[in-house]
């Protein structure tokens, strides 16, 4: 049952990731990426990380992807979907990406992970346990990340606003 869910979610995630790269229309790419993020959230639920699944949906599929859609809409990119590289460059890119995947798989195969199995604790990924971790052990990084978000907001506004002369 869980294995079937894993394979279905993996198939959805890989198909949508491929369609992000292959589709011509940027809006279609964004929508496929949202579907891919939902599949990854399903994986989080399978791994018993409920908090991260919800945060992934809210932050990635909600906020970040809406930002992408707005930029695609504002820049009106649908007229410029003929941006393509040369065939030879594409060929070299595919060979390079495939070689990277081959190298990663070959290096991971030697790591002897095959005998270990995932046995998640029942209360490990809940909001309670993650919140306890965040507000005790990782309190300082948590506060610093709020400063980082604030700096990002100010920087984004400063960069994107029009010059008023």
């Amino acid at each position, binding site marked *: 049952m*869980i294995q079937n869910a894993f394979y279905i979610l993996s198939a959805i995630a*890989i198909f949508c*990731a491929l369609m*992000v*790269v292959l589709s011509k229309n*940027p809006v279609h790419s964004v929508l496929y*990426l949202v579907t*891919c993020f939902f599949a990854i959230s399903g*994986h*989080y639920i399978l*791994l*018993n*990380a409920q*908090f*991260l699944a919800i*945060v*992934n949906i809210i*932050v*990635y599929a909600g*906020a*970040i992807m809406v*930002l*992408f859609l707005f*930029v695609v809409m504002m*820049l009106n*990119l649908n007229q*410029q*979907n003929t*941006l393509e*590289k040369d065939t030879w460059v*594409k060929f070299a*890119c*595919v060979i390079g*990406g*495939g070689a*990277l*995947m081959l190298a*990663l798989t070959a290096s*991971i195969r030697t790591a002897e*992970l*095959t005998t*270990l*199995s*995932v*046995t*998640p604790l*029942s209360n*490990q*990924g809940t909001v309670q346990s993650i919140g306890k*971790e*965040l507000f005790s*052990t*990782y309190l300082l*990084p948590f506060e610093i*990340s709020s400063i*980082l978000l604030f700096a*990002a*907001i100010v920087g984004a506004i400063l*960069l994107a606003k*029009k010059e008023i002369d």
Partner: protein
Amino acid sequence: MNETIQILSVSHYVTLCTILFSIGVLGVLLKRNAIIMFMCIELMLNAINLMLVAFSAHSQNPAGQTFVFFIMIIAAAEVAVGLAILVMVFRNVNSIDIEKLQNLKW
């Protein structure tokens, strides 16, 4: 919930994350549209997140999940600033094609 103990090994997740990460790298190499390159970077970040969660569930250690939470915060900040830069580039060059941004090319 003891009956939901999984029979999946970590190498399943490692394989899936490797494939997703490679698709992201492929997209960054293959595309000329800067927004789609950004989306492929997000894809790579998500592959790494999934791998961290799998390893954290394997070693019964919640530190991996808090780390994923911080990666999400960084990704949100990065996307906000990056998209603002893209809007500025579009305003200056009137295109989102990265081949037109070659002022720094030697």
